[in-house]
């Protein structure tokens, strides 16, 4: 209740602030202070609501639906960060996080804008429109994180209920709220407002009644996944600012100052967003075990699109700022307004794609369908900002006159940066089309993105080098050749070495390596020349060096990655890519909840140890596999576990299958059906006597049915296996294991008189996919260097932004 009230008051403050700032812009002088007070009041209330959300998570108040759904008691034992990250584990909380970060960005923005002329009322009027929409999103009508659990009747697992109240003699009313699932024997209590009122009559609070929650998906319990959302949403929040500046400029119909003022925000925002996107990729690499960091998954793509558009905007903003010296508003004024508007609109579109349920069938990550109202509200959110932005540009179109007579010369930095923007936008359009296709019942294979991006990357890297060699306005061709000769020769040499020694043969990859190396050398050359005493000028070069290193890492780790599936028999050495792998054993970790598989890795005199992990998670009742990564300087060795065979009873080398009751398989033309599970005698089991259990199978060969029952006997604690044979079908079936929970049986099928009856050693086998990722470290290092470059540039542009023309 408290949380919802605080958020509702914050919403009204946000609206008041928006109106006051707008009135101030329209000429009402005394409303400026009201706008400021209302904004800070709103921000404080949002912070209070967020602290309160953390408080109810940390104190396990399971009467809140959000706390019950995304946290549990066990998370506390894993560390406070894990529990605290429940804040953004679900949809409601991630909107809350976005709102929180936007509010904080707004406090900084207000202070920034108040020091820059008459900027504040216009910028803040637009910015508070965004906070208003976000506040409506988390309000009690939509995605409220403070909704009580009984608002929509929920079935709560019996284990999550305080057992002292589960006594129908004392609390007879509970009987009518008890449900059970017959197939799994799982009991539930239906928590509805009806139950809550009966509980309170009996003097029990919901908080006492529900004592544990569902928890988080174990794959999210990873450091990188916990810091990824706050950083990504910081980038989203900061993308609001250039939008607000663009609209503010359109409101005043003055297009000179806004460029300088928006520039540091754009740089910082895209730096943070880029880092956030990379952390998501790093998490996928470290946690999901498919060996990559980028799958062109809609969730990844949808945050990359605004980043590409924003980065495109950075390049043309720079041109406009520079060309203002020639008088007028500068080149590409319309383009820049449009790109700043589009960056934020695409952030909103990203939210729409991942949270409206439209990509339900396309992505693993997409949140579930939130319902029609949320869907429509998200459409309204995007629509409002798109219409506002594009509408304002259209409205001012005629007055948006650049007044530039002189055309860009072919060899001018202006034109090179404009072309870079176009290429980045082309990339954004491609990803946008591919990612949006599922809305229309279509989809694209990932090669669509890969094939399209190789030529784009070649052009981008060429421009990346060239644009820094050529000068503003005009370049002397002879001087250009003189300056570029070292980098060009270096790049050619580098590529020749790659072709000769690394076996690079694909033409497009050769071209990409060539332009990437060219860009790397050009930027390094300039960076080294200017590094002394002029550190703050380095930003662009550092960012471009980062991108070049990143691309080299991408080429190495994707094009030259090798992968092989190996069965590691315990104690026996297997080999992959010149490394000797030996599976030495299995041991439990983290309070016996997970199993680590110890693999010794050896090459020459170097010995390493790798431990992929597998476990059954209670959260989704599934097996979870975590890869092991051995990070060497020039490559990563990546072991992704596939499965583990305990061996032991596997003393025939027959065909092993796992069957569940009712299912059937074909074995060399013979049909086997698992008819039913032969239950052990419970009484005998209790009294410690001999127990017998097994599988009843129907075998069909040549139209004839046979019934057989291979058995497992437990005699004084020892297992004994009794296979069943059908001589006519030349078939022998042994049951080696029956799972207790679902009665799935492991069967070993073999021929009676075949060559496959030789007894085998009792072997434990770990199956893994081993892969080698050359220079994957450059991917991470490249992005980090690039982000550092963004921030060096930001520091420089921040100083320039103080100048008012």
């Amino acid at each position, binding site marked *: 209740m408290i949380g919802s009230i605080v958020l509702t008051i914050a919403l009204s403050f946000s609206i008041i602030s928006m109106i006051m700032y707008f009135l101030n812009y329209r000429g009402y002088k005394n409303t400026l202070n009201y706008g400021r007070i209302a904004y800070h009041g709103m921000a404080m209330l949002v912070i209070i609501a967020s602290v309160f959300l953390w408080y109810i998570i940390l104190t396990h108040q399971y009467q809140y639906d959000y706390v019950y759904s995304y946290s549990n008691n066990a998370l506390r034992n894993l560390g406070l960060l894990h529990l605290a990250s429940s804040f953004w584990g679900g949809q409601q909380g991630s909107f809350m996080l976005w709102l929180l970060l936007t509010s904080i960005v707004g406090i900084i923005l207000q202070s920034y804008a108040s020091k820059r002329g008459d900027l504040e009322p216009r910028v803040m009027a637009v910015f508070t429109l965004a906070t208003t929409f976000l506040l409506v999103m988390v309000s009690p009508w939509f995605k409220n994180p403070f909704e009580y659990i009984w608002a929509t009747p929920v079935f709560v697992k019996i284990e999550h209920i305080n057992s002292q109240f589960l006594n129908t003699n004392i609390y007879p009313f509970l009987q009518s709220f008890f*449900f059970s699932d017959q197939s799994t024997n799982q009991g539930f209590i239906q928590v509805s407002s009806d139950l809550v009122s009966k509980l309170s009559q009996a003097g029990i609070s919901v908080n006492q009644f529900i004592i544990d929650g569902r928890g988080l998906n174990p794959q999210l319990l990873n450091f990188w996944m916990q810091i990824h959302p706050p950083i990504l949403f910081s980038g989203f929040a900061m993308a609001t600012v250039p939008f607000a500046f663009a609209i503010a400029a359109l409101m005043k119909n003055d297009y000179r100052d806004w460029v300088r003022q928006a520039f540091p925000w754009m740089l910082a925002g895209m730096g943070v967003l880029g880092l956030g996107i990379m952390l998501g990729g790093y998490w996928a690499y470290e946690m999901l075990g498919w060996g990559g960091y980028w799958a062109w998954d809609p969730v990844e793509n949808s945050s990359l699109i605004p980043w590409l558009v924003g980065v495109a905007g950075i390049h043309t903003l720079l041109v406009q700022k520079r060309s203002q010296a020639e008088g007028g508003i500068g080149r590409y004024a319309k383009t820049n307004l449009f790109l700043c508007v589009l960056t934020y609109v695409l952030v909103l579109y990203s939210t729409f794609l991942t949270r409206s349920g439209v990509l*339900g069938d396309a992505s693993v990550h997409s949140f579930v369908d939130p319902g029609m109202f949320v869907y429509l509200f998200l459409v309204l959110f995007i629509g409002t900002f798109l219409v506002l932005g594009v509408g304002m540009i259209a409205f001012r179109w005629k007055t948006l006159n650049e007044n530039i007579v002189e*055309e860009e010369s072919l060899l001018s930095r202006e034109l090179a940066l404009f*072309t870079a923007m176009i290429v980045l936008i082309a990339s954004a359009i491609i990803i946008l089309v591919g990612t949006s*296709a599922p809305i229309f019942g*279509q989809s694209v*294979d990932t090669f669509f993105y890969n094939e399209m991006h190789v030529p784009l990357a070649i052009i981008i890297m060429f421009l990346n080098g060239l644009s820094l060699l050529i000068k503003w306005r005009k370049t002397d061709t002879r001087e250009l050749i003189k300056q570029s000769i070292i980098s060009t020769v270096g790049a050619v040499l580098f590529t020749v070495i790659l072709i000769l020694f690394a076996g690079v043969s694909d033409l497009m990859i050769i071209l990409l390596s060539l332009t990437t190396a060219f860009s790397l050398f050009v930027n390094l050359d300039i960076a080294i020349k200017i590094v002394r005493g002029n550190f703050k000028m380095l930003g662009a070069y550092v960012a471009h060096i980062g991108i070049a290193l990143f691309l080299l890492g991408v080429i190495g780790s994707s094009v030259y990655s090798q992968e092989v599936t190996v069965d590691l028999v315990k104690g026996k050495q297997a080999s992959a890519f010149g490394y000797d792998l030996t599976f030495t054993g299995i041991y439990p970790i983290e309070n016996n909840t997970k199993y680590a598989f110890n693999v010794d890795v050896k090459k020459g005199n170097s010995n390493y140890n790798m431990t992929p992990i597998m476990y059954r998670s209670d959260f989704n009742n599934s*097996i979870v596999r975590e890869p092991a990564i051995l990070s060497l300087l020039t490559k990563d060795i990546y072991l992704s576990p*596939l499965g583990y065979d305990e061996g032991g009873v596997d003393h025939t080398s027959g065909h092993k299958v796992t069957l569940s009751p009712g299912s059937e398989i074909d074995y060399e033309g013979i049909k086997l059906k698992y008819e039913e599970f032969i239950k052990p005698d419970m009484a005998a089991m209790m009294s410690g006597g001999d127990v017998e259990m097994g599988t009843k199978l129907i075998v069909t060969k040549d139209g004839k049915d046979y019934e057989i029952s291979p058995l497992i006997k437990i005699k004084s604690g020892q297992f004994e296996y009794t296979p069943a044979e059908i001589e006519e079908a030349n078939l022998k079936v042994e049951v080696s294991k029956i799972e207790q929970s679902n009665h799935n049986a492991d069967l070993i099928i073999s021929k009676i008189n075949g060559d496959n009856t030789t007894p085998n050693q009792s072997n434990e086998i770990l199956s893994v996919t081993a892969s080698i990722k050359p220079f994957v470290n450059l991917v991470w290092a490249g992005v980090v260097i690039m982000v550092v470059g963004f921030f060096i540039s930001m520091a420089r542009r921040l100083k320039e932004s103080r100048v008012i023309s």
Partner: protein
Amino acid sequence: MKNKYIFGGVIIAVFLVLMGYLFTQSNIEYADDFAKVMTTQKTVKATGIWVKEKSYQLDNKNKTFSFFMADENGNQMKVIYEGTIPNNFESAKNVVVTGKYQNGYFHAKDILTKCPSKYEEQKTSSSSL
């Protein structure tokens, strides 16, 4: 201003054409009618429900994972995936498989499992005592 439009226009035009071509090449359609899935030669994304009653089979020797899927009309088909059981599969309800139907089986290159939303799951699995 001519250079600007020539450069921008040519690049965008070239990539739009290239994109259009590759889009048709890499296009995979969603299909929720298995009768169609079984007759088409094309790679599709088949969406349906995992037939839980028939469970799934793990063949350790051939390293394949197979299960049955049904569409809304009740048409069933067997899906074979070269690989191991995907994470989360056991709690899945809806499944999206990408691949081709050949020789009586659907050969999946990729499996995507959709877990039921929390309310739905309980409604279907609960029955009063």
